[in-house]
């Protein structure tokens, strides 16, 4: 079913690259560096990130702040946010021949919503209107490494971010740890299912970036995505 819906769109001119991984796995740093590389190489590139649709954000924020969300509405409101970015930006940009870089994609929802107890098949169906990325990088950092990065950099964890709605523990940090561990195991299960390109998140930043660029260049003919600058026609001014 998923492939049937997606196959309607295999003919778009652009390329889609997604990055996935735990909070603190280093994926945002890496996708930022990839974006800079592409921009500085004069390629047509667009970056989008999870949970950032302007029209849906307000509702999501309220739902989170007032703790109104259940596993089902959590799944649906994030799917709505994704759909808005997909229909307004990702799809038109892909059709226009852009390279779209997506910090988190539907796999984030597959992992989180499954941990929250939603039926995995139902969640996959929600996102079946979206194309499968040309490459999905999975930044594989061991739980302890990822936790250390997050817990040092950002001491205050939010309620849903820490998975407090699931009642694993009344201690925020402990809850976050258990939640992340479960998400990690969901990600691991998806590696073969969706053919993620795994990057060892404990390698030096430069080495990870090198691997990432090599994988991109092997799969995508980058010069084809150079932005064409239209030169204005020479106008001969009347003397």
């Amino acid at each position, binding site marked *: *079913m998923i492939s049937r*819906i997606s196959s309607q769109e295999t003919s778009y001119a652009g390329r889609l690259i997604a990055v996935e991984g735990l909070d603190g796995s280093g994926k945002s740093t890496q996708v930022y560096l990839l974006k800079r590389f592409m921009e500085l190489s004069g390629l047509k590139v667009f970056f989008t990130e999870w949970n950032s649709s302007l*029209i*849906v954000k*307000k*509702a999501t924020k*309220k*739902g989170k702040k007032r703790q*109104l*969300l*259940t*596993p*089902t*509405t959590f799944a*649906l*409101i994030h*799917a*709505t946010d994704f*759909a*808005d970015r*997909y*229909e*307004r930006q990702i799809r038109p940009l892909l059709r226009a021949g852009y390279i779209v870089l997506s910090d988190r994609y539907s796999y984030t929802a597959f992992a989180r919503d499954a941990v*929250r*107890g*939603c*039926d995995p*098949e*139902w969640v996959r*169906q*929600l996102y*079946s*209107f979206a194309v499968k990325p040309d490459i999905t990088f999975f930044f594989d950092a061991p739980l302890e490494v990822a936790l250390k990065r997050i817990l040092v950099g950002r001491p205050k964890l939010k309620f849903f971010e820490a998975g407090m709605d699931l009642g694993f523990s009344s201690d925020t940090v402990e809850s976050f740890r258990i939640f992340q561990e479960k998400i990690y195991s969901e990600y691991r299960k998806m590696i073969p299912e969706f053919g993620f390109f795994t990057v060892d998140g404990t390698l030096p930043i430069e080495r990870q970036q090198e691997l990432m660029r090599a994988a991109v260049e092997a799969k995508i003919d980058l010069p084809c995505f150079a932005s064409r600058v239209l030169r204005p026609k020479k106008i001969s001014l009347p003397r």
Partner: protein
Amino acid sequence: MKRFYGKGLPGVDPEGLSGKLIVIEGGDDFNRATQLEMVKDCLEHNGHATVNVGLKRSTLVGRELAEVQQGNTLGPATLSLFYATDFADQLENRIVPALRSGIIVLADRYIYTLMARDIVRGADRDWVKSLYSIALVPDAVFYLQVNVRQLVENNLQQNSTLDYWDSGMDIGLSRELFDSFIKYQRLIQNEFHRMQSEYGFEVINGNRPPRPVARELCARVADLVEPLPTASIVASNASL
């Protein structure tokens, strides 16, 4: 015994939902609100507690959804998922708790209108069905069948204009509001007809003034609920 269309809601056991879920479906018609009020009066008169639900009424996104429809163009998948969020929030926080307390839930439209609208906007039928597999199967679905011409009349009488979304102006059937309304409501009706046997709609002729329609609805609803010992006497004196 209640059940879900599909796997349902995580963490919600349909057992013990002793109230009744009664759905009134139909096109975009202002008369339905009046009719539902009358059904509510009739039920309360007979000692039954009721709760009303409807589209775009959730605490979570009801207001936000109404806001983004003012002048924003939402893509079809976004619109669909936004409404599904609104529905799910009401299902979990209003419908299920009310049913658990033995209350009669009167739904001014349910997943069928939402599915019809999505399908008319090009959504895949199976996709929409999967989306709403979280829904509870109602105890009864009454489909108020109203001619499209009558719908126009009812809308104009209420508002002196036709609503942009109720006319399906977003899908470009016609640039003319009136033509678009007619075409759009016909497409929606076709979807309802398709769903009729699959979902067991009970059809009620809605091309009548609100009062006789409400009277028929009340009689049908009364068959579904346990009467109080004195209800029959009271009912005979009821104003309807």
